[in-house]
């Protein structure tokens, strides 16, 4: 390992993970700086979780360099893990214990004294708005509440770095927004967050900087804004056609936009002025079922980088 890791809290160079002949993570480079919230955006199977697991010392590095809080996961897993908080993709709470017991029991694993654990549990239950459910069995909680309890549990050791693996997958919109709000508060307090997600809105909301992963590699890196500026136009015109209209289209959209992306259900025209482009569509007498002008998003970045949509 190289000596100077600069100010990066996590630093990866040519980081690689292979399972037999399958390469899950293929020589990726990235730096996570203290206090930032860093995202891994990509479809399922892109290598996000494998990368996460290596950072969390749950999976050995196959090749390349990785340092976490200036330590080596291969030899200092115990020390690193003492300073991490991990929110896994699937909840793994202890269903035989109450909400509060889950936190206090977990504190034992970090060797946190009982009195400290109790007062932290109080604070954390309030932070994730579960103080009224403290004495309830975990099994009686809703999906969103379980997720919040998992987050509270990950904070019990006051971690320097918190890892969220798909924090809101499977939650309803209301539960998602509540969770985002809590994550945002953590960020405000100066915590360093690593978030994996296949939801572009989540990445845009929460991440200061992110990498787009696809097929085990990093396709692009930057802030959400930078990525959109670099890989997309300002606006997108979304057109939907009926089957007959689509058949008669035959190249008539050419020259209307900087880039045209044909998806199964809609056609995207990348342009800096969506309304103007829509006018031109009408001038050409192209029959459209519906049209929508919107700002470009990370979804468009992903589409432009890979030619595929993020969530199929």
């Amino acid at each position: 390992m190289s000596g100077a890791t600069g100010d990066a809290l996590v630093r990866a160079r040519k980081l690689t993970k292979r399972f037999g002949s399958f390469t899950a993570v293929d020589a990726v480079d990235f730096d996570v700086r203290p206090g930032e919230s860093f995202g891994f955006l990509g479809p399922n199977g892109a290598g996000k979780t494998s990368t996460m697991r290596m950072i969390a010392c749950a999976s050995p590095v196959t090749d390349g360099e990785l340092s976490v809080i200036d330590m080596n996961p291969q030899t200092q897993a115990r020390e690193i893990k003492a300073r991490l908080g991990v929110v896994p993709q699937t909840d793994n709470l202890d269903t035989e214990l109450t909400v509060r017991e889950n936190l206090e029991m977990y504190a034992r694993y970090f060797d946190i004294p009982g009195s400290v654990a109790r007062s932290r549990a109080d604070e954390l239950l309030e932070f994730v708005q579960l103080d009224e459910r403290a004495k309830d069995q975990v099994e009686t909680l809703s999906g969103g509440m379980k997720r919040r309890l998992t987050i509270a549990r990950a904070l019990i050791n006051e971690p320097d770095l918190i890892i969220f693996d798909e924090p809101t997958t499977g939650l309803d919109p209301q539960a998602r927004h509540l969770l985002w709000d809590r994550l945002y508060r953590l960020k405000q307090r100066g915590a360093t967050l690593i978030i994996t997600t296949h939801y572009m809105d989540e990445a845009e909301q929460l991440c200061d900087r992110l990498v787009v992963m696809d097929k085990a590699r990093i396709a692009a890196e930057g802030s959400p804004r930078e990525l959109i500026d670099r890989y997309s136009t300002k606006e997108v015109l979304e057109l939907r056609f009926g089957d007959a209209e689509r058949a008669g289209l035959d190249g008539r959209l050419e020259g209307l936009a900087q880039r045209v992306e044909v998806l199964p259900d809609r056609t995207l025209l990348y342009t800096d002025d969506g309304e103007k482009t829509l006018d031109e569509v009408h001038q050409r007498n192209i029959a459209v079922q519906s049209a929508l002008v919107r700002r470009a998003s990370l979804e468009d970045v992903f589409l432009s980088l890979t030619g595929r949509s993020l969530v199929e």
Partner: protein
Amino acid sequence: MSRTAQPPHRSLFFGFLQPFMFLTAMGLGIGGLLARTNPNAFGPAGYIGFLGPGLLGAMAMQTATFESSYPIMNKIMWGRNYEAILSTPLSTRNILLGELGWIGFRLMTVGTIFLAVLALFRVAQTPLALLSIPVIGLTGLGFSSWLIAFAARQRNDVGFSWVFRFVINPLFLFSGTFFPLAQMPQAVQVIAWFTPLFHGVELMRGLVLGHLDLATAPWHLAYLLVFFAVGLVLADRSLAKRLAN
């Protein structure tokens, strides 16, 4: 699939009830019948004296087997508790030692109650019998370690029913638990010598009845120690391979 924690008094009560019923039914019931036809077949302690320590050994195996199969698989796969624990400073080895510590504690608690029942039936009458408690722990932990290694290598729970049917049940019946192996053909006796429960039962019987054979006892003990040691290495490797991949 999760194990529901029993209140301690209830599990202690069952720990008492089970051996009490077995010893009454088989020890006194069947034993009484046997005594009518051949009063000296089982020596001065009678059939119940033979059966009691045999059941004690079988109990150690069964308790350990139960505790080390579905509950372990649950914590690996279904409840994913180990994944949560591994996000803390603890390692797979810590998990293994913790599980074995708990199972060992449980074995010795249940074993102590069992011994009390044996004393009640006047089977265990010598202080030497107390030495069978660590043997219960050692025998049980031997099975535990092998089963944890097995559980860590399974993708579903189908394998357990095969182990129960083709390993645990035959051992339960043919380890000198219910009848002396001398009744069986030579081949069965030789096979039994290579199986773990037989050695546990022999040691426990000698200690409980107070007539330990000092010529064979070290070999029984050595077998159990090696059985546990190998299981420990296998369990350690299997858990690490499964959970830290």
